[in-house]
């Protein structure tokens, strides 16, 4: 069996472990000349520690805006965002940088690796900003690369890696400082279906075995099914928020077995 049977309802579980993320009436609008573009129009939700959430919705529904706020890259126009119980609005710029560095791992759609910089150095980057000693940085980066199955490619440059491998380096980079939350904005958006499932396998593994809270944006239903909870955005509001019943959860490792390999 690959799915973990749960007897406790999810909402209770969320309260028991404490909401790692809680947002209240989040609004975000951009001023474009005379009109305001509303990206978020009152989003309220909680995400508990150890959840694996898929955020879905049509293009322009505010998913990225929401993720950027969760990742402390952006600030809401109004509303509150409590990260592990603390209102983020109270943090200074320096605090926010530290949170991005230590507590949140971010994976982007476009990989966003530094060119002409090896996989290992890319992975090391966050550790560089947390002033870890050199050996510790290397050790952690190698561990993170190992987790995504790329330890043997540590000296490759992004241009020498496939899209899936680049995205795995980006995930390793998101993991190197051992954050408690991993945010991924369309992590499979640029990948073929098999590679996408491989990435989901990594996410499921990290979620189950390391207890990592994962929030992932996707607009593909078959990618969202790997998560335990699906939140659907529409026009800047949450349209639906539901948990996959434990028995319906799809196991990526299992799916992979039935998929043709491309690298044969």
């Amino acid at each position, binding site marked *: 069996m690959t799915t973990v049977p749960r007897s406790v309802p999810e909402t209770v579980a969320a309260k028991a472990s404490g909401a790692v993320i809680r947002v209240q009436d989040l609004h975000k609008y951009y001023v474009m000349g005379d009109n305001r573009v509303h990206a978020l129009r009152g989003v309220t939700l909680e995400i508990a520690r150890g959840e694996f959430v898929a955020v879905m919705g049509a293009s322009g529904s505010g998913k990225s805006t929401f993720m950027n706020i969760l990742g402390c*890259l952006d600030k809401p126009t109004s509303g509150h965002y409590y990260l592990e119980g603390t209102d983020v609005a109270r943090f200074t710029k320096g605090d926010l940088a530290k949170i991005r560095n230590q507590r949140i791992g971010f994976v982007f759609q476009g990989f966003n690796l530094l060119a002409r910089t090896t996989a290992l150095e890319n992975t090391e*980057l*966050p550790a560089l900003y947390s002033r870890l000693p050199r050996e510790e940085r290397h050790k952690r980066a190698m561990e993170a690369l190992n987790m995504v199955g790329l330890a043997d490619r540590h000296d490759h440059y992004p241009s020498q890696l496939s899209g899936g491998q680049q995205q795995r380096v980006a995930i390793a980079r998101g993991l190197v400082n051992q954050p408690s939350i991993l945010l991924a904005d369309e992590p499979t958006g640029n990948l073929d279906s098999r590679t996408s499932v491989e990435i989901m396998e990594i996410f499921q593994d990290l979620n189950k075995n390391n207890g990592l809270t994962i929030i992932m944006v996707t607009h593909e239903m078959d990618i969202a099914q790997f998560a335990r909870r699906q939140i659907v955005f529409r026009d800047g509001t949450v349209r639906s928020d539901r948990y996959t019943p434990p028995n319906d959860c799809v196991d990526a490792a299992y799916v992979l077995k039935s998929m043709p390999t491309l690298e044969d």
Partner: protein
Amino acid sequence: MDFLSTMRLALRALARNKMRSGLTMLGIIIGVGAVIAMVGIGQGADRQIQDQIAALGSNMLFVGSGSVNRGGMRMGSGATKTLVQDDAAAILRECPQVAAGSAGTVTGAQVVHENDNWNTQVYGVEPAYFDIRNWPPSMGVTFDQSEVDRAANVAVIGETVRKNLFAAASPLGETIRIKNLPFTVIGVLSAKGTSAAQGNDQDDAIFIPVSTHQKKLTGDTWLRFINVSAVSQAASVGAQGCITALLRDRHRIRAGQDDDFFVRNLKDMADSAAQASRIMTILLASIASVSLLVGGIGIMNIMLVSVTERTREIGIRIAIGATEQDVQRQFLIEAFVLSVIGGGIGILFGIASSWVISAQFKWPVLISPMSIVVAALFSMAIGIFFGFYPARKASRLDPIEALRYE
């Protein structure tokens, strides 16, 4: 990020665009090099002036006719007709601090020897002149009092005149014609070189007895100057006072009226010469500084380009936890490294070009450790100053927009 990692990062970023980094550095190299070389030339000239003035003999005084602007730069003797032979004699007689004196006058003249002719300054002086100026002949002799007494047609020529009229031949005993009067060359003065204070060639001159000059050459009995030596350096101030009082009395200048002559001691000359060379040094250095400024602007320009090009990289760094200070430091150190390496090479370049200049133009060049230290500090400051704005710009980027930047 720690300093070492930031440094490594900066070197790597610069190595990535070798051509561009090199060209940017070139601006600083030329700027620093020019400052070093120009200051070297200025200080070399200053040193040469000091040396020459010291070589004049520290107890020399110069009495010139006409008034002089106090504190001004005018060093030459005035044209006013105020000094006479009796003044020179009176100075020797009345002032106990004075050891020797030589009345002097001067005129420009055409000098001919066989087919060669040369335009030069002809000085009428007394025998003591050569001792006072510490200027011995390299060939032959200088004239004595008896030759002055009988207004003999003898000439002692400067090295430049010798070269132009005689080339390799021996001038001694030869006849030259000054304003068509025949003179016998009895000596050649040792080469003294360019006067640092006035900038003229001191060897481009002919010396004849003052009596001959007055009676036969110009018919003018006024003196242009009197060279005096005090008995000692300590006595030179007293001598100056004595001469001033004496000449004022002899020229019947009432209290409150300006002198119609001037007396300069060595210190006066050294001071105004030093002032002149200092002004020249500052002038040269400021011209060179302009190129350093241009180099700094080049750094700023290339850093701004670099920030724009690396917008995405900056976005990534901020997104994964780089603080504003981290980003700012990264770019500041890049600019700093550019300017410091450029400055270092510029110092070597400046020293090398100083050597070339001093060898090529025979100019004295003096590279002081001080100017090197100042140049090094200055190039560092340039890097920080011109790197600051681009670095700040980078650190203020919005990460979301930066990540979206293509």
